[in-house]
């Protein structure tokens, strides 16, 4: 097939100059803003409250004056007519063909309606990233996830079909059956959360005597749902366990599939800037962040999503800006290390900013520890404490003092903090199939009424 030779799913959009990209983004932003203003009472009221109308939006500076949308605002508007989406819905109910909802990690789930066109757009965004990661029609792609009300890898499924891959839904099978089916069919690629990918490798070896790197044919793994695939130590563990290339992808139910790592693995995510406008704010002051190297909170607009538009959505994702050019030739901006944390999770401990991803990178870089760990932040009197629970490998009963010493040293270097370290036998800490909850800040729980 002659198109297989193209390194880009969309050779035009993915290589636009910065100036052309910005012109396109501005045109699209104005269009989606006007659409939302004219079709949604929620959006109109929000923008009227600050006196901004579509004709006022002509520059990126104008865009920065537009109020952001937070998840809590979507929650408050939903559960009403047109049921259950309420006033943020921009199309008649009969145009809605897909329902998904957020996981509800931070509160009541948000419902997400989509039209056929939106769903085409979802799979188009995913096709862009899968193609960039080397998926081609010859691939046989296995999706080991529960096909349900969460968006998860649904659009990955349709994008895989759209590319022309043979697409295998590994829905209600248990982990062992999924591994056996992948082996039987010689699947060449798969998509799952990093936590589940590591768990699958563990199950394959322990319960089935299958070494994924030797006995399976998986050569590409697309990870999403949580950081990990761009945390160096986690990526290394997965790649070694599976003998495959591991790629990260970032997205969210309310936003769409906005970021991806390309096959060149630059240690960063590309933002799909033809479909999304990404803005960055200082996590403390809210001021715009534009300089490479700085961290910013991602505020994002899905430029073409129509049923329930996502305009200047506060993603709460913390990212690090880069001005590096990628060797893949795409002009889409890079974010170093992908999503480095959630604004909710990144917290000050003893006055020092702590990102859970940094702890994961240390734990998984140390041989002699399993993939699982747990971080508990608490307060004793006026002093913050951090307890790190780690697991030994199967069969080990005690941690060598050199291992604990190395853990202390590397954590100190990487996070500038001291930890109380507890070691546990293999299998003691919780296992997760979807999004892991390894970071617990008990100070927040105590402060809630």
């Amino acid at each position, binding site marked *: 097939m002659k198109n297989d030779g193209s390194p880009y799913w969309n050779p035009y959009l993915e290589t636009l100059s910065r100036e052309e990209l910005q012109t*396109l983004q501005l045109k699209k932003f104005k269009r989606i803003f006007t659409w939302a203003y004219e079709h949604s009472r929620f959006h109109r009221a929000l923008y009227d409250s600050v006196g901004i109308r579509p004709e006022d939006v002509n520059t990126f500076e104008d865009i920065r004056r537009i109020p952001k949308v937070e998840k809590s605002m979507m929650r408050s508007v939903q559960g009403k007519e047109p049921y259950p989406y309420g006033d943020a819905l921009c199309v008649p109910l009969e145009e809605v063909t897909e329902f998904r909802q957020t996981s509800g990690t931070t509160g009541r789930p948000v419902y997400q309606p989509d039209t056929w*066109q939106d769903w085409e*757009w979802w799979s188009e965004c995913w096709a862009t990233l899968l193609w960039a990661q080397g998926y081609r029609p010859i691939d046989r792609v296995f999706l080991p996830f529960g096909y349900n009300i969460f968006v998860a890898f649904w659009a990955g499924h349709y994008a895989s079909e759209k590319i022309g891959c043979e697409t295998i839904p590994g829905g209600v099978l248990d982990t062992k059956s999924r591994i056996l089916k992948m082996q039987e069919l010689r699947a060449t690629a798969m998509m799952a959360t990093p936590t589940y990918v590591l768990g699958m490798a563990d199950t394959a070896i322990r319960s089935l005597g299958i070494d994924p790197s030797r006995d399976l044919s998986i050569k590409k793994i697309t990870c999403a749902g949580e950081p990990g695939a761009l945390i160096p130590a986690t990526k290394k563990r997965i790649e070694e366990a599976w003998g495959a290339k591991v790629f990260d992808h970032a997205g969210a139910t309310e936003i769409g599939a906005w970021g991806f790592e390309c096959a060149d693995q630059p240690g960063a995510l590309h933002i799909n800037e033809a479909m999304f406008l990404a803005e960055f704010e200082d996590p403390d002051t809210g001021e715009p962040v534009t300089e490479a190297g700085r961290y910013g909170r991602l505020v994002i607009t899905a430029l*073409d999503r129509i049923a329930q538009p996502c305009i200047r959505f506060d993603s709460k994702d913390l990212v690090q800006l880069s001005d590096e050019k990628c060797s893949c030739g795409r002009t889409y901006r890079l974010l170093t290390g992908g999503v480095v944390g959630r604004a909710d999770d990144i917290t000050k401990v003893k006055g020092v900013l702590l990102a859970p991803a940094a702890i994961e990178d240390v734990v998984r870089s140390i041989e002699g520890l399993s993939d699982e760990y747990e971080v508990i932040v608490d307060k004793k009197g006026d002093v913050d404490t951090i307890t790190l629970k780690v697991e030994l490998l199967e069969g080990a009963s005690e941690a060598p003092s050199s291992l604990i010493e190395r853990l202390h040293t590397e954590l100190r270097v990487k996070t500038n903090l001291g930890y109380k370290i507890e070691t546990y036998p293999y299998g003691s800490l919780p296992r997760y199939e979807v999004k892991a909850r390894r970071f617990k800040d008990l100070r927040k729980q105590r402060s809630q009424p």
Partner: protein
Amino acid sequence: MNEQARREEMLDMIIAMEKLAEKLSAVSQRFPAIERNAKRIKASIAMMKLNLGE
């Protein structure tokens, strides 16, 4: 043919398909098997337009 001319030619074809799909949608009222498929084709056409920066 240069790239821009090729894109313009593709866009012309897409717009022609869009008009045809609109027409088909209109004449297929009370014939769901055609009307709903025409509508679905329109969603794909919209995506092709977006892919050319429209």
